[in-house]
Each structure stands twice: as structure tokens, then as C-alpha cells.
């Protein structure tokens, strides 16, 4: 891990505000960063919800879990007390961004990256949570790396008060994270340099996926230069199709693919996975 005294690091001290802990970093890496934790107190063995909120400067974009060509995924390296764990950051649906000759999956403006902190069963007393967030912000002229030092102090026991505004933001963040949905079945046919998607609704599903976009979570499988839009398929409202160009870096045999389906018509993005039989 980098030294926290690095000049690129933004100091980020958290102040307890009822159930939430909120702080703003000095402005670094063309983005403003806040850390919000749902509770200033923890209970042994139980998770606490939290969010990293990033606001990119106008004209700049940051990257999704699959950054596409160029770019870099936003990551955090935690330094946690013994027994504590943090889940990976979760990412909402991105948008396709073409800068120069590179196509990527990106965010503009505000993006909320939720995660969970979990205390071990034997946790007690005051604990310090520390982490280093790193990201890349780019515009059409260039890219700037950013780092922020995330820090929180949590106390054991019941919470003395609540801060509903932050709770709402944390709920909002989680509501936009792609979720597995067993009502859909996927088949992918890999032929002629393209991946032919068929997404089939089970009998009780009436949602239309027509016009929604597919974003691949796995890198170097689909070519990000072309949007993958879902068509009406056979018109039955049950079988939807999409055509995607293979990435020039895809392996000869594609064994599996995780992807999300996103459109403004869906309550939340759908997380789907295909495995070659």
C-alpha cells in the first residue's frame, strides 16, 4: 500500500453525525469524494452498509468495474482491524463513453458505490476503519489519477441517534446496483466474430427488455466500441435478442460471460450470467 503521506492523497476524516458518518475530501483527481456509513455504532458479527460517493468535475468521467478500452476501475485498499472485512465496491450501470479512438464504460457527475463493512463476532470497543480509494478521471485532453484516504471511527453498541438523509442516500445507492433475476434465461451463440444473445423470459415475466443495453462485466469479451442494444426478438414479448461484436482480445473459446441489462424502464439493472454448456 502507498504511504498515506503521499501528496496525491486527500485526507478524509469522518465526523459522527448520528447514524451516519460523512466527510468531504479536499479536491483531488478531478473528483470530490465522500464516505457515508449507515451507523456510527456496530454490533459484533453484523454488517454495516456504507457508500463511497464520488462527484466527477464537469467534463471528466470515471470508470465502471469493466473500464473498457483505456481507463481504470475505481478501487479501495482497506486497512481494517483484525477480523473486520469489507465487501468489494458495488457499481451501478455505466454509460458508454467514446473519447478519441477509445470506447469505455464510464460515469459522469455523481456516482454512488455501496459496500458493506462487517464486524467479527468477537468485536468490541472503538475501532478505526481506514482505506485508500484510487481512481482515474479523464476528459478528451487527458487523464488524472486520484487518491483519497478513507477513515472512520466506529463504536460498539446501540446507536444513539439517526440521520435519515444519509440513510436515504445509502438506500438509493443500493437500489441502483444490478441484481440477479432468475426470471430470465440467457443463451449466447458465439459465431462469425459476433456473440448472438437470446434472453428468454419465464412464463410469469411481462417486463420488456426491448431497447435496453447490455454492458459486459467481464473484460475483453465484447468490443466496447459498439453499443449492444436489445431488440424485440421474435416479437412474442418473451424472447429478446441482441448482437454484440467480439473484442479483438477475446479468447478463442468464450466459456462464460457476466453482464448487466440496463434501461430506464427497468426498476434496477439486471445481472445475468451465461455459461457455455
Amino acid at each position, binding site marked *: 500500500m502507498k504511504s498515506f503521506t503521499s501528496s496525491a492523497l486527500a485526507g478524509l476524516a469522518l465526523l459522527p453525525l448520528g447514524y451516519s458518518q460523512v466527510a468531504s475530501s479536499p479536491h483531488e483527481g478531478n473528483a470530490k469524494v465522500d464516505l457515508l456509513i449507515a451507523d456510527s455504532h456496530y454490533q459484533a458479527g453484523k454488517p454495516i452498509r456504507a457508500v463511497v460517493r464520488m462527484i466527477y468535475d464537469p467534463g471528466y468521467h470515471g470508470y465502471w468495474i469493466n473500464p473498457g*478500452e*483505456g481507463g481504470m*476501475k475505481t478501487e479501495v485498499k482497506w486497512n481494517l482491524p483484525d477480523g473486520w472485512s469489507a465487501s468489494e465496491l458495488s457499481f451501478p450501470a455505466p454509460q458508454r463513453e467514446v473519447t*478519441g*479512438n*477509445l470506447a469505455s464504460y464510464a460515469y459522469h457527475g455523481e456516482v454512488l458505490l455501496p459496500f458493506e463493512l462487517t464486524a467479527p463476532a468477537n468485536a468490541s470497543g472503538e475501532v478505526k476503519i481506514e482505506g485508500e480509494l484510487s481512481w482515474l478521471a479523464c476528459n478528451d485532453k*487527458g487523464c488524472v*489519477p486520484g487518491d483519497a484516504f478513507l477513515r472512520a471511527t466506529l463504536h460498539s453498541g446501540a446507536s444513539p441517534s439517526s440521520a435519515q438523509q444519509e440513510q436515504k442516500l445509502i438506500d438509493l445507492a443500493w437500489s441502483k446496483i444490478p441484481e440477479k433475476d432468475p426470471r430470465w434465461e440467457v443463451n449466447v451463440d458465439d459465431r462469425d466474430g459476433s456473440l448472438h444473445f437470446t434472453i428468454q423470459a419465464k412464463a410469469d415475466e411481462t417486463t420488456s427488455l426491448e431497447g435496453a443495453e447490455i454492458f459486459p462485466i467481464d473484460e475483453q469479451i465484447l468490443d466496447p466500441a459498439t453499443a449492444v442494444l436489445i431488440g424485440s426478438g421474435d416479437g412474442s414479448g418473451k424472447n429478446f435478442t441482441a448482437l454484440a461484436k467480439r*473484442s479483438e*482480445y477475446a479468447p478463442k473459446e468464450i466459456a462464460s460471460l457476466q453482464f448487466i441489462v440496463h434501461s430506464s424502464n427497468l426498476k434496477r439493472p439486471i445481472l445475468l450470467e451465461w455459461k457455455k454448456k
Partner: protein
Amino acid sequence: MTAKNMFTAMVSAISISISANAAEVGKAAPDFSAKDAKGTDVSLAALKGKVVVLEWVNHGCPFVVKHYGSKNMQKLQETYTGKGVVWITINSGSKASGSYTDDATFIKMSEEKGSKASHLIADESGTIGKAYDAKVTPHMFVIDAKGVLAYNGAIDSKKSTDVADIAGAENYVVKALDAVLADKPVETAKTEPYGCGVKY
């Protein structure tokens, strides 16, 4: 720009020529000829018999800063030019993009960073970059002694700007060069390059 410098730049721009071949691993690398930043003629055809590395650079890019700030790139240049490899560092940034460096500035920046490249080429027109489809900085190519493209892709396996990631990364350029110099096939001959987009 003085009249003399302008003339030099014009000569430099029109002196770059290229063959029509696309850059494809296993096939003849696109030929090119150009004057380097010091005014020396560089021609890929004339370098047949030697292993050649092409490295795309933009010293304002944080991914390039990672590999130069850590001296990783300079060490590679020193190690492999010491083994007879010709290392050509190319900037295909256009004047309009703000990434262009004139020959004198390119030389000065490279010297300040301790570059051990054999040649620096300011490819302002993007002619060489587009022939190789150089996408990012750093984008790396290895050409074997027969003039065949042996590697096209990233410098290593860790897509990040963090110097600490260099130690644990698989350096594809080292593997490709070691294989080519030993007259063995390159196992990983094509990877997705990572970095900042080349500002054509």
C-alpha cells in the same frame, strides 16, 4: 516557431512514409521511414536483422508516469538495447491535441527522464501510430529480426497507475523480447494495451 524550426518540422512531417500493411501479429510489421528527433534517418526495413521495440509515449499520461517515474521503462530500454535491440519511442500526439512535442522538447524530456531509447520519433501526423493502430500510451510492439510483428499490447498485466503494481505484474514485453531473442515463439503475443488514448 522560428522560420528555421518551422522548416524542420515540415521536413520532419513529410519525411515519414509507411507501407500499406496492417499491423497483425505473425505478419510483416508495417514498414516506415522517418527522421528521428535528432535528424537521423530511421527505416524499419533497414533494421532487418535486429529486434525492434516500438513504444508509444506521452509524458503527461499517468500510466506513462508510472513506468517512467519508477524507472521501469528506462531499465527495460537499457537491458534490451544492451542486447542489441533497437528501441524506438514514438509520440503520435497531434498539435491540435496539445500532446505534440517538437523534436527539441522531446529530446529534453526524454533526457531528463533518463530514457535509453535508441530513437525518438515525433509522429505528429499520426502516420506511424495509425499504421500500427497504436491506441494508448504506453502501447508496446515487438518486431523480430525478420521484420515480423511478434507482440502487440500492454507493457504488463496490471492495468493501474500505481507504481506498487509493477513488481507483481507479468511483463509481457520482457517475455516477448526474451522469446524473440532466443528464437522461440512468443506465448502471449497479443494483449489489450492499457493507458491514455493516443491523442491523434
